């Protein structure tokens, strides 16, 4: 157990005289009024049913706190997978222009990490028309469904059939084997203009890092 919690700590709600902090003689220590009030307040709030529950909760809190460094390490995952020549939409779709002038789309690494429980991926069939910023397919995980938003208007000319049997490919290789579909743009002339508004690698990286993360659960 760490001994960081000293009475000089500013956030300390209870002030104790430094000598009595760790209570060398347990039986002679009178529980101070502040501690009693604080404990009472906690119990009145109804979060704990008894002081004993409160104490065991405190032990859990402490154990949870000891695990904190690991969690911080988890947060700082880099994105080594993001290719430089890819473009990104705010819907976490990456775009690559193929040599034939078509658009290959897939889901980014950020999206992939929300798809650990992927159950299936369904793009619209070959030949169907898609419109810019409208869904052209759907990804299903165990609990949720996510729309795939098309970055441009056009026609679907290819879909990755491997994903239908093995949607897990998207977790392993979102940028290469995990591509989803190829779209032939309706208007080649305005294509360049449309793509200019999309994010480049560095922009996307910064943008993703700013996205709100849910707060870590206090145990």
């Amino acid at each position, binding site marked *: 157990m760490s001994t960081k*919690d000293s009475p000089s700590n500013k956030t300390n709600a209870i002030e104790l005289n430094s000598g009595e902090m760790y209570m060398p003689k347990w039986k002679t220590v009178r529980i101070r009024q502040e*501690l009693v009030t604080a404990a009472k307040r906690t119990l009145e709030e109804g979060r704990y*049913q008894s002081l*004993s529950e409160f104490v*065991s909760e405190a032990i859990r809190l402490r154990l949870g706190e000891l695990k904190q460094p690991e969690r911080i390490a988890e947060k700082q995952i880099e994105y080594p997978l993001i290719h430089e020549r890819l473009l990104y939409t705010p819907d976490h779709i990456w775009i690559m222009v193929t040599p034939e002038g078509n658009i290959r789309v897939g889901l980014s690494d950020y999206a992939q990490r929300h798809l*650990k*429980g992927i159950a299936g991926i369904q793009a619209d069939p070959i030949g169907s028309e898609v419109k810019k910023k409208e869904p052209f397919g759907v990804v299903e995980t165990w609990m949720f469904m996510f729309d795939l938003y098309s970055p441009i208007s056009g026609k679907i000319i290819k879909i990755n059939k491997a994903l239908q049997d093995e949607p897990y490919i998207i977790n392993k290789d979102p940028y290469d084997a995990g591509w989803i579909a190829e779209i032939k743009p309706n208007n080649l002339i305005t294509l360049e203009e449309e793509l200019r508004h999309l994010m480049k690698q560095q922009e996307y990286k910064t943008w993703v890092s700013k996205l709100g993360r849910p707060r870590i659960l206090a145990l």
Partner: protein
Amino acid sequence: MEATNCAFKNKRMLPPCRAACPADVNVQGYIALLQQGKFKESVELVRKSIPFPAICGRVCYSPCEDACARKNVDEPVSIRALKWIIADIEREEGRVKPEPVPKTHSEKVAVVGAGPAGLTAAYELAKLGYPVTVFEAMPEPGGTMRYFIPDSRLRKDVVANEVAYIQDLGVEIKTGVLFGRDLSIDSLQNDGYDAIFIAIGIQKVWSRKLKTQDTPSLPPTLLNIEEGEASTKLSTVWVDPLTLETRIPGVFAGGDILTGKASGIVYAIGAGKRTAISIDRYLNGQDLRTGREEKIEETTWVKDWATIAKKPKRYTSPRTDGKQKVSFEEAEERLAKIKEVAIFEARRCLECGPCTECLGSEELCDIDKAVVNEALCTGCNVCVIICPFGAMKKSERGVAQVDDDLCKGCGACSACCPERAITMQRATNAQIMTNVLAALEREFA
């Protein structure tokens, strides 16, 4: 904490929820793990007793909630809904693939019928290292769970996922094999199966579903023949109600085939588990009945329900099993929210059962225990009065005595003992105080 240190080897009492469960799920255990936010460990614990956490979470009729002691205060804990959500969160956070269990036994086991009873028996026997083959008449395994429960209550992919888990453990499932037409008890015995479990469900219902006139050719020795007034009626199969063994040695039967009516998935799972124990004993040449008739006592520490603060139910299961369309950011938020609510609901558990449920032997439980130094104890009785769980008693020698089954390690006795005769096994007094202060700090920061 090593397994040998665990003071609660003799599990002789159960909390009401576990006692009520036909499949003997360690409810208090998984709820306790959930309180600590250990979602994965919690599902693993459920899987120790049943192979279908997600299915039971959806369609079990939850006798555990009817028995829950919390109902004496306000409403029972949402035990079933919590099982649903922990199983879903586990799957949502990644596909679960267990390691196949190595085959340590050479005796082959055949299970006829891939419904809840048959699959549970196969699962339990595969975990023990037996090579198990399941024969199923329908094109897909799952039985009642797949073909009779509507999609709105139980999605097909949920069943497929749980069956895949059993297959990953090393169970072989052969579909499209009809008992009575392609298989019989004799043919299975000739193929070298040392034990057979018949779990084919209610025949009338299934032959209609299979669109077949074939009825299973069960030998008359298996059947329960009732002498009616007009004619001799063949009803269900006769088995020993304790061991589920039929009149033919090595042949067992369980599930709906015994009752002749749909009796609930959790009952079938219970039957599958009991059969697995019987088959294991049969193949090892042990007595099937020894030690199985004992009734385990039910217990709670709560003496006065009026003293317990009311906390209304926060979490109930969703009405339908549909998926919602969200964005990636929303999904992350919702998942965090669901987890928070689930932990809050788990905290409503009174943990009224004995400490045998704490999993201390499996290093999952952080619980502590009180120890009395009898040389210092003067028998003042303060600890007996203060203990909220009724775990302290005055022994015949006039000193305090800890009932290890009931002690939950709160440290209240240790804190109040005027002679400092009670200490905790793991935490020192200073540590407990540090923890209290840390908790208060966080609470009022």
